[in-house]
């Protein structure tokens, strides 16, 4: 499962498609969970909405005010886990995290922000299932998008 997980590599037709029409972009009314990853230093954020039926991720959408790397990763990741179960979604997450080392520092932070927002949406779902009153779960990023490219 997700052995061949994809990360954006340069400008190819697939990346261009994600740039021109990001998949699963937007929001879900009455979702099962909402999560935000926030870079307080720059004000950049990624927000994920998930809609689950039992353990199946029936639908998920994301939005961001971040850069195009963030959009492409959000589009690719959401397309990959939509329709799968939460357990496999977490596996996809782990596979993508393993690949973070091969990215530039900026791409790494952007990708991490997408993945953290997805994690936050799962946490929010858990909290709501446990009867907590939480509008959305927010994770503050430790690293900022403003990392130097020559870091």
């Amino acid at each position, binding site marked *: 499962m997700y052995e061949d997980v994809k990360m954006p590599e*340069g*400008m190819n037709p697939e990346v*261009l498609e994600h740039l021109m029409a990001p998949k699963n*972009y937007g*929001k879900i009314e009455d979702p099962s969970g909402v999560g*935000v990853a926030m870079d307080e230093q*720059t004000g950049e954020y990624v927000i994920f909405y998930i809609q689950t039926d039992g353990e199946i991720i029936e639908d998920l959408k994301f*939005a961001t*005010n971040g*850069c195009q790397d963030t959009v492409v990763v959000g589009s690719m990741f959401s397309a990959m886990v939509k329709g799968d179960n939460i357990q496999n979604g977490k596996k996809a997450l782990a596979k993508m995290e393993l690949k973070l080392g091969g990215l530039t520092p900026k791409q790494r932070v952007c990708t991490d922000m997408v993945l953290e927002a997805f994690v936050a949406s799962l946490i929010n779902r858990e909290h709501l299932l446990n009867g907590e009153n939480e509008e959305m779960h927010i994770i503050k990023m430790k690293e900022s998008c403003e990392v130097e490219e020559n870091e």
Partner: protein
Amino acid sequence: MNKLYQAKHELWLDILFASFAINDKQIKRDLYNFSTIEFRHMKWLGDKVLKDGDDYNYDRTKMLHKRESVFDILRYLIVELKKISALYGEDILNARMITDEDYMIHHIAALLDNRANDAQITAFNMARKYADKNLPQEQTDALTIFLFEESYKEYELILVYAYMQARTTNLTHFNVFQDLIDESHFHLQSFGEMMAKMGILALPRELHSMTYIVKDIEKFVIDGIAEEEGAKEMCKTLSDAIHDDELKRFFDFVNYQESYHIELMKKLL
């Protein structure tokens, strides 16, 4: 939320991006001018919505349709212009919007009477070749990313400043927002035209309310200044990377404009 406002927002984008997609200079100019009228409608409508104690947002449902020919685009615009009329009421603003759009429909229909106005649309062919220039792959890639980043950013700035302008009672702020909106319209037009030339024309993605509902204006301005600095840096990097005098001059020109944006933004502090 206000359905007419959403429809007006989408219609503005429809006409604006049609103007980018079409190569004929006269049709392009006419449609661009119509799009600026639609944007003003949007502003007036937003003011009225707020005055009536209601609110609006920037939600969208429409996608950019990749049309094959100029006539396909023009026919689509007529359908959309006719569709919005069903949402209008009966006050003086609505009457103004109806008469403006009646004229637009008439003008576009007249274009359809002349077969010579039809042509193939190349704005979506993903060829990524900038007009007659032979840019190497890495320069083409850099230009592609820049255009996606900055076209979204300019669209975002237009809407965020318009949202804040509609809600300010400070005249200095109102004027600064107007200057910044005007500047971003010019940049969005420039970048949209370049994207169409490269065959990668795409609608900027939708704005989430977290982006345009600003709770702390000081932080917003400070972040915005840092973003302008980032945009300046991107223009400079691109200008250095692209070995073409015309494009280089253009990106230097945009870079210097960003410097003055920072001065304008400081007036908001």
